[in-house]
């Protein structure tokens, strides 16, 4: 069953290491791990699938070509990709704005200044959902119930049949992990 945590997942650190070494298959690994993250931020910001697909393509092509500038000591690979995604989304928004300005000018209308970036909240929500999905299954279940079910940690322990100490430790460690990921990805690289 897929909730069994037997599947050996490649850790984000491993993916990052392979990428920074320029391994030939690295881009595919990175895409498998972070393609949905980049695509989801783009889709939620731009609202059209074709634009989100274009941005996703641009992000990974650009990341591959500038892989020498990625330094794992300065930040996480996810954070670096999120920064590139923000920039590409901003470019796409600027291009859209430019086109609509031309249309408005043709129609004799006024132009409205727009912000050229995905909102921080969109990025944070997607990053959080991504990290939540990376948690080992039992930790993820505990956090889903803690966030959304209105059960106390004691009730969660009871319904999941877990020792109280395990639930407490899952909650503490998962919250810390989610927080660290958010901080790593929201800081401009």
């Amino acid at each position, binding site marked *: 069953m897929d909730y069994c945590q037997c599947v050996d997942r490649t850790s984000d650190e491993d993916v990052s290491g392979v990428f920074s070494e320029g391994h030939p298959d690295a881009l595919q690994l990175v895409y498998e791990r972070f393609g*949905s993250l980049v695509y989801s931020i783009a889709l939620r910001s731009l609202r059209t699938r074709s634009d989100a*697909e274009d941005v996703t*393509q641009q992000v990974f092509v650009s990341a591959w070509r500038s892989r020498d500038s990625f330094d794992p000591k300065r930040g996480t690979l996810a954070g670096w990709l999120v920064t590139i995604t923000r920039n590409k989304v901003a470019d796409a928004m600027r291009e859209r704005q430019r086109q609509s300005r031309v249309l408005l000018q043709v129609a004799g209308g006024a132009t409205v200044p727009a912000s050229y970036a995905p909102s921080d909240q969109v990025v944070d*929500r997607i990053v*959080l959902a991504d990290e939540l999905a990376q948690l080992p299954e039992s930790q993820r279940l505990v956090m889903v119930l803690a966030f959304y*079910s209105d059960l106390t940690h004691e009730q969660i322990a009871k319904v999941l049949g877990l020792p109280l100490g395990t639930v407490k430790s899952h909650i503490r460690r998962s*919250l810390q992990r989610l*927080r660290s990921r958010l901080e790593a990805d929201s800081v401009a690289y």
Partner: protein
Amino acid sequence: MSHTDPVILALRALGETAGTAQDDDHAQTCPHCRHEQARLTEVVDLARHAGPDEHLEQPPPVVWDRIAAAVGNATVSPTTVRPRETVASSNGHQGRAQDSGQEADVGEHRRAGARGRRGRLVTALAGLAAGLIIGVGGTAGVVQLTKAPATRVVAQIELSSLPAFPQWRGATGTAVMRATASQQVMVVTLHAPQRPGFYEVWLLARNGVSMISLGDLNADHTGTFTVPPGVDLRNYSRIDVSLQPFNGSTLHAKTSVVRGSLPAVAFGSSSGSASPS
């Protein structure tokens, strides 16, 4: 004294009552613990604002084809890319075929993707905890305890702002309905900016005209209300929070901040199938 136990900080961030009066005193004066508490609370707020349906979508396979072509990566076969969530991926693929080049219905795809994830969640829970069933209908999450506690959570409803009231865009809330043998209690939490006036919670009937006032939210935008006995929640199935001016009127001020619907499953045949055995 030493810093507050990180477990206590985490539980407090989730809104639970944890720790001692000594922890309270410490939390007031220690910048480190206050900062930690705030960091964790931000995560919880973000997660709850996003709601349980927030999820990632897989790009359609054609995106990888284009990337591999652009970087000239001939060693990579696109067929070896296996998206982690097959359901979301197949939806994305369909979407591409149907809406190619057009404005896609993002909402529809989100719902479709979410169904897949919910399915997995239900399976996982069924395996891990026979005592708990999670089913989700529309925007509402339903948690039912099939063991027999004194109160059971009947439904958890996400409240969101309405397109007709753009001034409340981004406002959200939750309503958690608990039932005991004799009454139904609703706990409502609102996430909205403070504006002049006060927030009032209503049940709206299906006809869109009849309504019942449950009461006012507290200053912290939460409130606990008892549903008047005899109210048919299959008819009064919508929860509405209004902003009321201080003008003495007891009528709905016609400014809906957020709204949500009770899932039919929570009450349709609840007295039969969902009651504890």
